[in-house]
């Protein structure tokens, strides 16, 4: 066992010293307080990083240099170097759950779940730029591609809240179905989709008028209450929206031009967050209850393999600077 770990560490050291040779994914494992580092070429977890308590939201900075994770029960965001996988900084903030970076790489928008706040941080210094009161149990965070609009969802208020980047003020709130979990902008910025976990729907919202223009349901024969939409991702051309369906154990493939579900892809159990590889050819799903990630081939729309990670994987992200 020790020698295997040694080899893995050696492999990693080599990896760090030289240009990346594989897509590297990270999962936040809520139950065992770790991040799994997954080599997608090897199809294996190559290292496990200890984190603070209850790691959930996870992201990598656009330059690929830093890995950020929300440790909800430790009231902090940890910043790790992706090169050394060591913590380089910690940002104190109460009960962070999920966050999003402005596409430029700064600032960072954090939902503070217990305090009904969105906190804005300068990610380079860790300084608080603003605290914006929002709805009860803020969760989903999304930044528009132009960086001008931030959307936060609140699970108990049941709204998508629109925040203006320049003024750092709440400008609108759109009611959606019960327990909104996530928000995601299309790459062209024309729409923001918001998933409602208990409502079982995705609301398509026009970010200019803040009106719900379409509502997508996910009928699956034989399933009813298990259909709980969570994370959303769009292909680069915005033609397909992938919606993780939680305990339905499926990812819905939605034709994002006509808002119709094309098919469902069976993945692991309780799929919450998903993430693309930088080339958009693979979609990774974090399967909380089966303790693994599933890789979906985006071209074939098929699940190709699953890779074991830590316990209760919550989020998954691929380092944008890694390459196969």
């Amino acid at each position: 066992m020790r020698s295997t770990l040694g080899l893995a560490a050696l492999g990693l050291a080599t990896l760090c010293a030289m240009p990346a040779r594989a897509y590297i994914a990270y999962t936040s494992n809520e139950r065992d307080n770790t991040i799994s580092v997954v080599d997608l070429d090897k199809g294996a977890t190559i290292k496990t990083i200890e984190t603070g308590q209850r790691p959930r939201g996870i992201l990598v900075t656009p330059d690929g240099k830093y890995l950020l994770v929300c440790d909800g029960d430790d009231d902090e965001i940890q910043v790790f170097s992706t090169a050394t996988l060591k913590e380089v900084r910690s940002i104190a903030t109460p009960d962070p759950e999920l966050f999003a970076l402005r596409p430029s790489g700064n600032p960072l928008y954090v939902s503070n779940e217990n305090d009904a706040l969105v906190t804005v941080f300068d990610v380079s210094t860790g300084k608080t730029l603003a605290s914006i009161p929002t709805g009860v149990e803020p969760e989903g965070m999304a930044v528009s591609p132009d960086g001008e609009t931030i959307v936060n969802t609140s699970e108990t208020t049941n709204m998508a809240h629109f925040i203006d980047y320049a003024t750092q003020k709440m400008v609108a709130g759109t009611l959606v179905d019960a327990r909104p979990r996530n928000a995601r902008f299309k790459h062209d910025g024309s729409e923001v989709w918001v998933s409602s976990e208990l409502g079982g729907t995705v609301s398509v919202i026009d970010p200019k008028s803040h009106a719900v223009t379409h509502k997508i349901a996910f009928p699956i024969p034989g399933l009813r209450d298990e259909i709980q939409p969570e994370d959303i991702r769009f292909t680069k051309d915005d033609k397909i929206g992938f919606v993780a369906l939680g305990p339905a154990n499926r990812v819905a493939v939605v034709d994002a031009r006509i808002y119709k579900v094309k098919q469902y892809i069976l993945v692991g159990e309780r799929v919450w967050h998903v993430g693309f590889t930088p080339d958009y050819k693979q979609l990774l799903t974090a399967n909380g209850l089966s303790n693994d990630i599933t890789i979906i081939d985006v071209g074939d729309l098929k699940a190709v393999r699953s890779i074991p990670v830590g316990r209760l994987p919550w989020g998954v992200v691929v380092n944008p600077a890694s390459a196969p």
Partner: protein
Amino acid sequence: MEGERIPRGLGRRAVLAAAGIAASRQARADVATIRIGYIRWVEPRPTISLLDKPARDAGLAGAKMAIADNNTTGRFMNQQFELVDRRVSPDEDPVAALGELAGEGIALLMTDAPADQVLKLADAGAPKGVTIFNIAAPDDSLREENCRSNTIHVAPTRSMLADAVAQYLVWKRWNRWLLAYGSHPQDALLADAYRRSAKRFGARIVEERQYKDTGGSRETDTGLIQTQQQLPVFTQSAPEYDVLVAADENEVFAGYLPYRTWDPRPVAGSAGLRPLTWDPSSESWGGTQMQDRFVRAFRRTMTALDMQAWTAARMVGEAASRTQSADPARIMSTIRGPQFQLAAYKGEPLSLRGWNGQLRQPILLSDGRNVVSTSPQPGFLHQVTDLDTLGVDQPETKCRL
């Protein structure tokens, strides 16, 4: 006034922000105020475990939490919620309190009073346009032969609770039950509910035993030895059984059953594996954040009664924001409407049974340390919603609203 108080620990910045908004809002004419009354039944109730001793703010804390949650949402809807708390003891008439609250213009009123008082309040409230939210009385009769069109039942019925236990026991294939029930009228009703559940889900009650409340049997400094001897004798010479099902609503004996039965058997019902709307250990479906917020605000853990009070006030808040109205009549028609859903940390939305005003909801099964399971159990199916496998279903109802 309760409504203006923000529970401690909701986060200093959030509180300051909320206070700032509340202050600026005073000047604004377009903010609608929605007031919810709470007739709080104050009757001392002995419990077997010291851990179950009701807090002074039992129920009230849950209602306050919901008012704070509603007000956070209300900031975006120009709505403000207030709670008006009236304590009523058994030697007082709750109808007088209802009259006062109705006189103050309150039309939405929750109460944790017992069933006979709920009925009195409903009938007294009807001509005044008051809707009663029953947050505690589990009596099926209030939803059946004595149902009232101006009553919403947030508390689950005895039949729902018994079905929740029964489904799990049947799923475990613990089909042979020894039914032990107390000597109070409520215990007879609860025993009836377990008999009905056994029949419904294919379990068999191998024998029934009544435990008479002779007074003074609760554990004291010297009572331990007595209990240790009484309970084995009470459960001695039973036919072969898998599980002891206890029906003891007044906490006379059930709490003493675990580890004291003659045969080594698990206990369910009023002790052991208990059916509840909430348990402070529930962490699924966002439960952790609810527990965190509650403990921070009230310095104690959240009970089932707190959850039922929270749910009642949140139903009002949810309907008010969905309709963007503070009009009690519109709020009530929304709550009763087919689209109404409330997220309450139970993994699926709660909604109302239109035929009798009962809130349909999953039931947690707790061992007092953890949530063992949640009913309905897998495989118990229903054509409308599996939640309607718990309790009296529409085709069986005696309620005609």
